């Protein structure tokens, strides 16, 4: 299955600023997914990113707040824009395995704290 490198692993940011999270996959994948996870909560899907097209956002998430780039089949970024303390969370990227039997691979997550 794929290996995903995600960075930064953590950051503390001032409100009103933006942070870009990067995910690099060691193989080509058609779809990548971005999740948010509050402590003790489930993973909430933010958006699905396909290479060569605009990301598809879930209800409650908008492109202006969470712009996503997918320049090629191995890389994606998520930007958290104009941050507020409510954006403090863990952000994770994910990609499917080459075979559904392999499930999904996740990055190690970015722990974001907005002060």
């Amino acid at each position, binding site marked *: 299955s794929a290996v995903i490198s995600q960075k930064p692993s953590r950051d503390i940011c001032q409100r009103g600023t933006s942070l870009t999270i990067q995910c690099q996959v060691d193989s080509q994948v058609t*779809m990548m*997914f971005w*999740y948010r996870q509050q402590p003790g909560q*489930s*993973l909430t899907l933010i958006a*699905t990113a396909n290479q060569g097209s605009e990301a598809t956002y879930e209800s409650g998430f908008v492109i202006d707040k969470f712009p996503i780039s997918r320049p090629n089949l191995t890389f994606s970024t998520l930007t958290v824009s104009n941050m507020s303390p409510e954006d403090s969370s863990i952000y994770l990227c994910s990609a499917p395995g080459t075979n*559904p039997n392999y*499930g*999904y691979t996740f990055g190690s997550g970015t722990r974001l704290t907005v002060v």
Partner: protein
Amino acid sequence: SQKIEQNSEALNIQEGKTATLTCNYTNYSPAYLQWYRQDPGRGPVFLLLIRENEKEKRKERLKVTFDTTLKQSLFHITASQPADSATYLCAIYLTGGFKTIFGAGTRLFVKA
């Protein structure tokens, strides 16, 4: 409304016993269901997948069952070890939107 429910209370068991975790879902028709393990500060790690037409799947000390009538999956760890202590997440794959939806997870503690 659509929901995936896992026991929010932590499960505490003694080493060597079998741990059983439950995942119930409402108003979904999943093509398959997955189980993941998540350790603190790490991303989830895939464990097992079971399809809608399968009743049971095994992998080493792990066993998953899937009852589409009850809309429930059970996840078993036999001969549990302290190293099995983690949060276990169930996830439903929806073919319509190619999306995976996760439950909140159940924290398992295995005592030596």
